């Protein structure tokens, strides 16, 4: 496998993405906004009565970290995988001497670089407005790192295997929209998991969607105790491995199924 070529591709992509900053800043703004809406709604609710131990400033801390984590883990590339398969673009990648996964990875990394250039300063300004509060502890901050890497990998491979279904069905994109909705409902966007009704909380803890976005945030902002963190990490790891295996399976079958039209 040619990793050198992959790295060159990654560098190239992010430099070319930076030339279209305005466009990506706008995308990032669009993702940020719903989270800010729910931050404001919940703070308005918290100002009237107490929400099971969540104050306005802890909510602000939770949502502002979630804005960043969400953008770090959101896999934009998966939306274009289906188009590339339908348009036959993927034929060219298949004959290149490196894994086509690199094409997805390159725009992933390019995206993160560009989105963070926008989101980090904006979040910093928002922090001045909403005045967040964190209950950090050292050990927990350390566990945040593996959990965010796993969250990214899980969200990426989960979306990727769904997108690869485009080998068979033309409109597999709608599965990605469904994934986004599930993350909104059960991944801590609509509300921190502990504010959800019980049946939704149990679903959130079993299904993979919380582990794609809210879980690292809950660790960092001190919402979880030690046991919850470790059992959560195990579930997250399990889902990540499952997602990767699904990707391998769908990819191998899909390429065998694939017939290019034209050149």
């Amino acid at each position, binding site marked *: 496998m040619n990793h050198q070529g992959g790295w060159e591709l990654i560098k190239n992509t992010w430099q070319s993405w930076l030339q279209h900053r*305005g*466009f990506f800043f*706008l995308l990032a*703004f*669009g993702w940020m*906004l*719903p989270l800010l*809406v729910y931050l*404001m*709604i*919940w703070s*308005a*609710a918290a100002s*009237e*009565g107490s*929400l*099971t131990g969540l104050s306005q400033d802890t909510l602000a801390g939770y949502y502002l970290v979630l804005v960043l984590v969400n953008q770090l883990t959101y896999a934009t590339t998966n939306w274009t995988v289906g188009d590339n398969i339908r348009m036959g673009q993927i034929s060219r990648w298949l004959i290149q001497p490196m894994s086509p996964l690199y094409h997805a990875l390159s725009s992933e990394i390019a995206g993160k670089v560009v989105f963070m250039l926008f989101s980090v300063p904006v979040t910093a300004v928002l922090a001045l407005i909403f005045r967040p509060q964190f209950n950090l502890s050292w050990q927990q901050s350390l566990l945040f790192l593996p959990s965010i890497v796993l969250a990214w990998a899980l969200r990426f491979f989960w979306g990727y295997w769904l997108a690869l279904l485009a080998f068979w069905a*033309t*409109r597999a994109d*709608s599965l990605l*929209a*469904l994934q986004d*909705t599930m993350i*909104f*409902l059960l991944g801590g966007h*609509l*509300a921190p998991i502990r*504010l*959800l*009704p019980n049946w*939704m909380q149990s679903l959130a803890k079993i299904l993979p969607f919380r582990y794609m976005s809210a879980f690292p945030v809950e660790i960092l902002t001190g919402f979880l105790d030690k046991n919850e963190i470790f059992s959560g990490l195990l579930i997250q790891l399990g889902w990540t491995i499952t997602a990767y295996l699904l990707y391998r399976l769908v990819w191998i079958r899909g390429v065998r199924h694939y017939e290019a039209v034209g050149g």
Partner: protein
Amino acid sequence: MQGLRLIFEFFKVSTQAELAYRANFFIRFLNAILNLVTGVLSLTVIFNQVDSIKGWDLPSAMALLGVYLLLAALRGLFIGPSLESVAGMDGEIWQGTFDFTLLRPVDKQFLISFRHWRVLMLFDLCLALGVLGYAIHLMQAELTLLAVLGFIITLIAGVALLYAALLAFSALVFWNSGFLFTWIINDLFQLARYPVELYPGWLRLVLTWIIPVGLMTTIPAQALSGKLSWQWLILTLLFTIGALIGASWLFRQGLKKYTSASS
């Protein structure tokens, strides 16, 4: 009269084009259902925690959601696709094909506002009406004739305001086609999901008078629950008329500035 006939023809052509793709049918349906479920579930989660926020309880918030879904459906039905085909990404102004549109012997603003229809958004429209009906059922209040009348008037004003805002933002493309202004208003429109009273003071002012997405949904919902005063009703109507005139003026100024991309 001729206008109505033209709209009917546009509608027919769009319908034929859209119904050619059968998969779209299911996808639109799925999307409409997803929208409905997320909207209703969000309110359920919020009002599971608190009885009311800033004077808004579940029934009145549900009415507002109905208005929001109704406006979103109308936007998706024709305002959005029509304006997007001119000012959106890869729209006529980017492509330079706007010249052909200008040559048509019809009022330009009329033409670009009603040309494209996404018929399947009628699903969304029905679901929105369903939510409104459910909200009225929840209110259980003796709906006065006056409240219903006020609701219908303010709802029409809301649609007109939405149209004016979208037209104004689309017209900006004549000054700078690189920046996707229509996207910004799409993003900001999400803020209309909740009553403006729930947002912090500075944002409330912006959403009422500068980018009036707040007015579009909050006022009709207030009218339905009988909380709207006469002064606000008149103010809203005057503001709407002003916005329509202003947006139309901006569009005409833009047209004057337009120099063909091709020659």
